[in-house]
């Protein structure tokens, strides 16, 4: 499968939901999609396009918006593809991929913990690395690592 083939198939199915399919070094391509069609898109990729492996879910804070990306692997085509969706910074919410790929569970908890993305439909969206009750999402650009933070106080008071 080539990148433009993929673009054609996706656009014919989702139309406006697909914002674009870019070339990406080392990957089949990067599919930029609207967060509203996330759930359907995941099912399409797993069931119709054969991307059974979800290898990575991550998030980037671009200050004015946040980006969630998923990388998928297809055993048949031996390629990776990246899905990416932009979310508004004030309400970073997207449908969870756990019903489609159970492996997304830990990844999405990590993305929630570090970047503060809300995954709707996630069975157990708690922090995974930082202690429960920690006030920040440390991988946001606004979080400066040199600043003293109240985690120390919190842990000591426990």
């Amino acid at each position, binding site marked *: 499968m080539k990148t433009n083939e993929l673009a054609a198939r996706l656009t014919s199915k989702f139309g406006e939901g697909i914002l674009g399919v870019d070339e990406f070094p080392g990957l089949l391509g990067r599919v930029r999609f609207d967060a509203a069609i996330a759930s359907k898109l995941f099912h399409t990729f797993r069931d119709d396009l054969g991307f059974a492996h979800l290898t990575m879910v991550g998030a980037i804070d671009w200050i004015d918006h946040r980006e969630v990306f998923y990388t998928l692997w297809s055993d048949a085509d031996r390629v990776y593809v990246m899905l990416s969706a932009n979310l508004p910074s004030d309400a970073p919410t997207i449908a969870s991929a756990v019903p489609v790929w159970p492996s997304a569970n830990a990844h999405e908890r990590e993305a929630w913990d570090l970047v503060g993305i809300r995954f709707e439909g996630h069975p157990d969206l708690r922090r995974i*690395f930082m202690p429960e009750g920690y006030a920040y999402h440390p991988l946001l650009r606004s979080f400066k690592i040199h600043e003293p933070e109240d*985690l120390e106080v919190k842990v000591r008071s426990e």
Partner: protein
Amino acid sequence: MSGQTPLPAKVPPASAGPSAAIADMPLEVIGQPGVPFVEIETLRAREFIPAAKEALTSLLKEQANGKLIRPVFNWAGRNSLFPLHWGLACCAIEFAAAFGARWDAERFGVVPRSSPRQCDLLIVNGTVTWKVAHKLIALYEQMPEPKWAIAMGNCATGGGPFRTAYSVVPGVDKLIPVDVYIAGCPPRPENLLDGILRLEQLIKERGA
């Protein structure tokens, strides 16, 4: 023990042995002519109690000054340091290597135990995060006295390369008292053994 009993009619024969002779002889007879050997034996027996008392008193006095038993226990304590068997991060691998065939820390009597109740040495071998901090304190407090702590590696000493990170305790001495710091990232097993030997030296000098 005063002398209400009458004097014996005859001096017992020497062949009867000291115990038979002493058995039926009042103490006042001793010292009279004719019983020289018995006298010596008895005197020895009589002096035994005050001598023993004095020896015991001086022994207790020395013990109270910490000259007698304490060095023995000090020797025992410093030669049998059981570290807690737990791995935090990178240094745990070198910690394990120190118990491998090449370095073999058991030569010095260092045997890791898994339960903090049976340990006297907490080797903090790696980065301590705030999430694990209170567990580390709990482990340290579960160890019975006397106990020591070694901060192994730069992370435990001062945060190391992760000092600026939001989740890392910059130095384990903020949580528990540390006796020996070992530099290195990670320290080689020799360094760990050297640290343990330095701790032994410290115990010898400072007392437990």
